[in-house]
């Protein structure tokens, strides 16, 4: 037990599901309330802003499709990160792994010469492999050389981003693009099919949903999932049980990086149809997916819900830019606040706060 001013804190061992859900919602609500202050400071009525956002995103088919389009990369990256986070492997590198997938897809589409019917499967396959490779490198660095996973995965993002820049300014710059830093457009047979009148590349969405279900099954029903959970919850117990960290880390990052790679394939083959500047390929999906995974609290199925939520926020960002004439970066502010408050309520999950008033709990002031 601890005491802070008139409050008493009591340790809680196991937060209930309702508490987790309730406090997560609380975090989002607080973030929404703070956002309205920002709207207000910008001279926009928060009520008007939220209703406009709600109307245009949730109220129209176009808006709903925009949400889905944003959800796809978040879902794939998010599910992968859930797996990594369950093993306490802090993969901050989904962004780079996504770009690695995009690069591999571009190579298949433009330079491989793989015949048409095999092109799209090959893009996904190699995209997964490229993302997985980009993820396994930090895993090996961590297990073999004790390199901090947060730092190495984060740095790998920059390496990949500059690699993409080099490709599009250098060897892969499209001759037909008149000096712009793009590759050529992919041939039509390398374009993913879209839902009618939208930018929703449904094969990737489907893969994302299958990935969520599969990841849930892997974690709960397989030997690998069991070992991931043991290694994540108690490294000492894993060591004691002879569970190899090398194996767990490599598997986890293979899946995590691979899924992010698939997201990259979806973005270039479904939307842009070419490789372009890294921050146009991905609007920071790999970073936002960290919040998606954190909010899902270790459950890949929950990542479906949380990625939809952040899909909505991205779609709303577009709306804020167009209708309210505010910068698109407002979504980053919002994402940041949600993550901030989510980590804040973590405290409430494990400590029960009770008000005891002045009389009983005035430890700090007396005598000092």
């Amino acid at each position, binding site marked *: 037990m601890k005491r802070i001013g008139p409050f008493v804190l009591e340790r809680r*061992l196991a937060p209930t599901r309702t508490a987790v859900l309730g406090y997560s919602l609380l975090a989002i609500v607080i973030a929404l309330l703070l956002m309205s202050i920002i709207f207000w400071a910008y001279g926009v009525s928060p009520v008007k802003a939220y209703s406009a956002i709600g109307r245009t995103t949730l109220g129209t088919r176009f808006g709903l499709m925009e949400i889905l389009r944003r959800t796809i990369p978040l879902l794939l990256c998010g599910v992968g990160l859930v797996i990594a986070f369950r093993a306490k492997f802090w993969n901050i590198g989904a962004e780079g792994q996504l770009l690695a997938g995009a690069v591999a897809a571009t190579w298949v589409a433009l330079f491989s010469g793989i015949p048409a019917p095999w092109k799209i499967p090959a893009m996904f396959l190699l995209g997964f492999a490229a993302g997985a490779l980009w993820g396994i490198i930090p895993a090996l660095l961590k297990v073999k050389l004790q390199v901090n996973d947060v730092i190495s995965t984060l740095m790998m993002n920059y390496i990949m981003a500059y690699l993409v820049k080099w490709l599009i300014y250098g060897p892969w710059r499209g001759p037909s693009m008149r000096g712009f830093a793009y590759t050529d457009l992919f041939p039509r047979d390398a374009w993913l099919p879209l839902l009618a009148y939208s930018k929703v590349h449904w094969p990737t969405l489907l893969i994302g949903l299958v990935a969520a279900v599969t990841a849930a099954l892997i974690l709960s029903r397989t030997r690998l999932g069991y070992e991931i959970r043991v290694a994540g*919850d108690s490294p000492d117990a894993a060591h004691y049980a002879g569970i190899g960290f090398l194996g767990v880390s490599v598997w986890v990052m293979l899946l995590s990086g691979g899924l992010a790679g698939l997201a990259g394939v979806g973005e270039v083959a479904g939307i842009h149809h070419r490789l372009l500047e890294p921050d146009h390929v991905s609007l920071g999906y790999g970073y936002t997916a960290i919040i998606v995974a954190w909010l899902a609290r270790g459950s890949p199925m929950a990542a479906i819900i949380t990625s939809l939520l952040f899909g909505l926020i991205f779609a709303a960002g577009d709306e804020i830019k167009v209708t309210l004439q505010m910068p698109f970066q407002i979504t980053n502010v919002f994402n940041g606040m949600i993550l901030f408050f989510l980590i804040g309520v973590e405290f409430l999950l494990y400590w029960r706060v009770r008000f005891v008033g002045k009389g009983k709990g005035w430890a700090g002031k007396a005598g000092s």
Partner: protein
Amino acid sequence: MPKGLPAVAVSTHRACRTLLTKKQYSADQPVRQLDSLPTGPAILDGAMTEKRANAHPPPSEASKDVALLMVDIVKTFPGVVANDRVTFEVRRGEVHALLGENGAGKTTLMNILYGLYQADSGEIYLYGKRVRIRSPRDAIRHKIGMVHQHFKLVARHTVAENVVLGLSGTPFLAPARAVEGKIRELGELYGLKVDPKAHVWQLSAGEQQRVEIIKALVRGADILILDEPTSVLTPQESEELFKILERMKEEGHSVIFITHKLDEVMAVADRVTVMRRGKVVATLPTAEVDKPTLAKMMVGREVVFRLKKAACARGNEALVVENLWALSDRGLPALKGISFSVCRGEILGIAGVAGNGQKELVEVITGLRRATRGRVVVLGDDVTNKNPRRIADKGVAHIPEERLKMGIVPEMSVAENLILKKHHRPPFCRGFLLNLRAVRRFARHAIEEYEIMTPSPETPAKLLSGGNIQRLILARELSGEPALVVAAHPTYGLDVGATEQIRQILLQQRERGAAILLISEDLEELMTLADRIAVIFEGEIMGEVTPEEASLEEIGLMMAGEKRGVRA
């Protein structure tokens, strides 16, 4: 509670600053004046105290020799009443034992007295005056000192530096030198021999404990709380501690001695308060009570001190260790050429003070630490430096010392914890998939057979009590009839009931034909269970004895580093 150490250290530090900057404070000042220090709204005025005094008779003129009185202390934690209307009295100049099983509420009561917890209700009187203790700082100001079970010393500092840490009113330059004289003086007075200039890491556990006691005395403690003080000591060191306590008694200090060892109560205490399940069973002078009665009060039923043990039927050697060398975590030699063997149907006990290589020995045998030299042979196969899983699969069970950190995965369910180490083999795993039906079936079976008290197999393991966590580990490790059981401190910190059950289980395994390597600091346990006892000191085996021929004294000397037969 988060880690207690920093909080205590900080508040102690600030407390002393407060004390010593207020010039009127000195060790011989009357308590009354201390109470008049500005302590906020909590200290009750005289009228209030009187009113309370009417409700509770004790703080009257007649009980002048009562140093401490805790009345009707109630403390609840979510789901448990840790202290249920506990009344506890300590007289001036007595050693008062607080006896009870783990979870009886002894430590909770003392943590309330030391200000680490707040009681939900109840009152504390010191020398007849009501006080309120809201932090260790308050406790120290009221001249209460506490020596925790795990010492809170800075290993790289000297004794004097540790004593002076957080003590204010010392010179800015070379503060440690200022207290060296005081430390020597106290050492003379109480027999607390320790060199103020020695570094703490060089000291034995007994010496470190003395430093802790000196720390409390320098801060003017009149009432000293010792939490399970002998758990880290050799028998000889315990004897010395008891002598120190005698001296303190003579000087008028009151000592509260928390323990669950009956022998110590009889040896050192004037009176004893027995607690069970949060309540006080009785407070008695030790002269008027005997061990079996105390044990019955403590446990609530008759206790068998001797377990029935079949004659040792030694079979083949299950474990042979030859000239084993290994390094500690700090890269220093922890095992220096250890050799022994354990046969099937035999228990070999390893005695020794903690930190003499026991941990490293267990880890090397189970594959968790690399041997730098030597061999470990299990059932005729050399398994030196093999992967822990390979060794476990050969039929080596490991009951680890660190139950919570290593023995279980706290967040995972009881059922999932029960298959750890076996999760990769049939029937729990077929190919890539786990067989959840088999896992559940095994869990139900194990929970019943080992009497694991859990709401359900799906309950997270971290919610179980210590005894039940140990039952879970035993159920898991002993399933599949292992040929060798490496048990590190299997009953440490468990209550009498669980201890008895776990010892029975180990004896059953022995009768079944398992070889058991039992590492324990509890000499009584080793004398009861083991067929042979080897004593380890600084990574070497000092000698080997059988419980029948050995005396506690002889083992104690070996634990302190004397080789068998070397002694004159």
